């Protein structure tokens, strides 16, 4: 049987700008993936719980509010605590260049900033998901 890649798309924090998240959700669906879309105002705890129950291969998060340095590492920390850090984490949004090295060091596999194409993101996921 053909196993589709499963992706959780979430908006952590209080930021309500979900245009990017919705575009990614659609693009991943059109690339044949199963996208679990959880919507706005997700806490890191909710995101990790959903990712585990849905047994996703990857979590994609987007933040435009500047809370990324707090929220992304928290999700990764919780995944580790729950022995689920085999789930890959990618992120997008308004993320200043200066912040990227620290986020990558914390375990974010890739960060897509404004102007990134959905095709790049699809390709990254296909190339990097462990199966």
């Amino acid at each position, binding site marked *: *049987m*053909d*196993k*589709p890649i499963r992706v959780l798309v979430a908006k952590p924090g209080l930021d309500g700008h979900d245009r990017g998240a919705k575009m990614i*959700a*659609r693009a*991943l*669906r*059109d*690339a*044949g*993936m*199963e*996208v*679990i*879309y*959880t*919507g706005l105002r*997700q806490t890191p*705890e*909710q995101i990790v*719980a*959903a990712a*585990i*129950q*849905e*047994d996703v291969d990857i979590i994609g998060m987007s933040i435009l509010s500047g809370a990324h340095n707090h929220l992304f590492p928290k999700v990764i920390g919780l995944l580790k605590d*729950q*022995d*689920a850090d085999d789930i890959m984490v990618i992120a997008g949004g308004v993320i200043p260049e200066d912040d990227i090295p620290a986020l990558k060091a914390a375990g974010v596999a890739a960060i897509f900033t404004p102007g990134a194409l959905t095709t790049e993101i699809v390709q990254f996921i296909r190339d990097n998901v462990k199966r």
Partner: protein
Amino acid sequence: MELINKMLKGDKRACARLISIVENDEKESEKLIKKIYRFTGKAHIVGITGPPGAGKSTLTDKYVKLLRKSDYKVGVIAVDPTSPYTGGAILGDRIRMNDLALDPGVFIRSMGTRGYLGGLAKATRNAVKILDAYGCDYIIIETVGVGQSEVDIVKAADTVVLVMVPGLGDDIQSIKAGIMEIGDLFVVNKSDLFGAQRTATEINMMLDMSPKTDRRPPVVMVTANQNKNIEQMELEIQKHYHYLVDNGLLEERRKKNIKRELLELVEEELKKLVIRETENNGELDSMTESLFNKETDPFTLRDTLLSRIK
């Protein structure tokens, strides 16, 4: 299998992994179900179905929260359609259930139909078995938004809740009788909307016109997004369950479904067997050819094939 032991002890991650196996890997899935089958049959399985936009997810969310007040362990399987063109899907039912994600007594899983018609995914029934073995007291299956023929939920659930809303542009009359017949309970959601009473009246009229049975399904009016009258719905679901138990009908219904599942499995396997026998050596094509030329008939060839398998 270690995953099974973990799952039986209540490990969510293991449970999630096992559901992925029944979704993705036929061979492993069989081995798995063989091991857990004896642990199943304990949960009350409730199907929630109805047209798109009826508010099934919100209703499920509120229903689960009510069940959690009595400390029941609850599993939810929410099915959404897979795109026939790309094989991808957006599974968005969790949006309505986000604050259940952290409840240790709730397990929610979204499934794409993956080309399976009938309102469920092919793996839904097996996923239900896993949640049953995992120890859920209630398993709620939320189907895709049904149109006319997605009635597989009756094969999987003990109680089917058919959700309707006023003002979807469809009269109740236009919904095929086949769908109406599967409801053990009718819920008119968004009953704060104009026309809700009319929708309920129409359902009632339709039920009154149906052939008389021992039990006439009740119609409950709720407003899920305001958490109104969910208790009434829950009560009616329980009443239906007791009705089934008290009249020996639960056993009857489940046996019927088990038998149906068994026959489906046999049918599927038989078909595979025949194809394996005849496709590669060109026999299937030559049989088709001779049928096309009217040299024989399909029933004769069926018997020939079946006798060979025996």
